[in-house]
């Protein structure tokens, strides 16, 4: 059975239809990349899955149970920016998830419980390569380090699904490559299920096991808001076999199926 199921999902803002008839089954352990031009509702789809927004129509089920339209610890998220808390150190940011669930009233841990949580957080920081930076504040770190922290912070909750909203869009190309290696390693080691929205078509193909392209199927030039975007391409990549060639082949693959993509960030 699919881990996450979207059935006939519509998202409308008043007259404007953003997404229409989205039906998807996402299997456990898959790495789904979502691409598409600006305004095609990529981020809307992510927000709906995250629970930040309620779909106008349709249902979402996680493990067969309907998903409440609220953010919860079963879905982790990393945004392009503002994912980490500026007033907490690296360690504090990572501990926060453990503290929230352990003590709903004070949202803090003390004594032995805290020591155990610190050990867990430090292990997580170790695995994202921030072990030596645990006492730094986010403002003292580069964008890449902040995203590493955001990933560690989300993963410590062991979410069923990790949602990434253009997580590497603001990073330098070299750093981005390191981050690709990191997220791939974490995905394998932790057996994660990841949904990633990206503008970078190469990134979408090289990281994903499945690439979804959102765009409008129909277009009314007199009323552009009439039709929403839907999944126009749904490509399963046999990633494990093609791992070595995936990087090189991504662009050609994209060109072959004629996907148009914008290169300008929209958030």
């Amino acid at each position, binding site marked *: 059975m699919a881990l996450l199921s979207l059935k006939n999902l519509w998202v409308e803002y008043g007259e404007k239809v953003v997404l229409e008839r989205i039906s998807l089954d996402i299997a456990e352990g898959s790495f789904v990349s979502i691409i598409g031009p600006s305004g095609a509702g990529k981020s809307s789809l992510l927000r709906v899955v995250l629970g930040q927004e309620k779909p106008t129509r349709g249902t979402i089920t996680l493990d067969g149970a309907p998903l409440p339209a*609220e953010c919860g*610890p079963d879905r982790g998220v990393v*945004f392009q920016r503002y994912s980490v*808390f*500026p007033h907490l150190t690296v360690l504090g940011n990572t501990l926060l998830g453990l503290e*929230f669930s352990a003590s709903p009233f004070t*949202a803090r841990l003390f004594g032995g419980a805290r020591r155990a949580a610190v050990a867990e957080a430090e292990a997580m920081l170790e695995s994202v390569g921030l072990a030596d930076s645990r006492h730094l504040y986010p403002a003292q770190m580069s964008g890449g380090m902040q995203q590493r922290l955001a990933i560690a912070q*989300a993963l410590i909750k062991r979410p069923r699904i990790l949602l990434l909203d253009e997580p590497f869009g603001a990073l330098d190309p070299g750093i981005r490559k390191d981050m690709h290696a990191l997220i791939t390693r974490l995905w394998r080691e932790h057996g994660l299920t990841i949904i990633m929205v990206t503008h970078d078509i190469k990134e979408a193909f090289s990281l994903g096991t499945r690439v979804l392209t959102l765009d409008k199927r129909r277009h009314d030039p007199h009323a552009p808001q009439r039709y929403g975007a839907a999944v126009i391409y749904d490509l399963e990549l046999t990633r494990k076999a093609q791992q070595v060639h995936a990087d090189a082949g991504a662009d050609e693959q994209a060109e072959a199926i004629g996907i148009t993509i914008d290169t300008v960030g929209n958030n």
Partner: protein
Amino acid sequence: MRWVTAQPGRGRAILLGALPLVVLAFAYIVAAAARHSDNVADKILPLPGAMAAAMAALIFEADPLSGQYLFWADTLASLTRLGLGLGIATASTLLVGLVVGSLPPVRATLGPLVTAIAVIPPIALLPILFIVFGLGETAKVALIVIGVAPFMIRDVAGHIAALPREQVIKALTLGANSWGVMLRVALPQAMPRLIEALRLSLGPAWVFLISAEAIAADVGLGYRIFLVRRYLAMDVILPYVAWIAILAVVMDFVLSRGSRRLFGWAHGAAH
């Protein structure tokens, strides 16, 4: 060298900052000396010696009528009122600002009320306060609270409401409830802003304190200034004003230093 990029060093900045003060003091002494050469008994611009003598009587000698050292009694009374007023204003800002800033339904409910109170000139409420609380300490403290709290609440609540939406979403995905978001996300980030709002409120708070003391009091810095005005006692008024300025500067300095020490993350790389 261009003026817009010329950064004076630390020593030079202190020197430059002291220059206008020295010039002002010198200009005063010249003007005072000129007036005294015309009229030895001039009261409008007293010479430093006269000011020192007048202040020494207030600082070191007990008042024969009340047995109090007036300067210290005035200072203590004024600082108590100011401290109480600012303390209550800060505590209520923390409470109301946090709730109004982080919970949109509460913001919709209380926001307009806070705005409405904030636009009323507090001095216009002073008669009401005197009628309700009498002429004692309560009315003076209440004036300071009503004068500065609405501004502080609006400032802090606005700052919390403007925190990136992503932070709230992220906290919820980390298992927080609304209380957790307020306690661990909104509150710590509001603290440096609260201190900033308090610093900006020091000026208005002094205005309300002096006004209240001028109208109805029997002790206090503002009371003394308005009392001795009847005798044209500039030799007391000027040192008192200088003393108020020193107190205000020290408070501002302590708050600014405290914020940097406690909330280094909010002050750039200086930690």
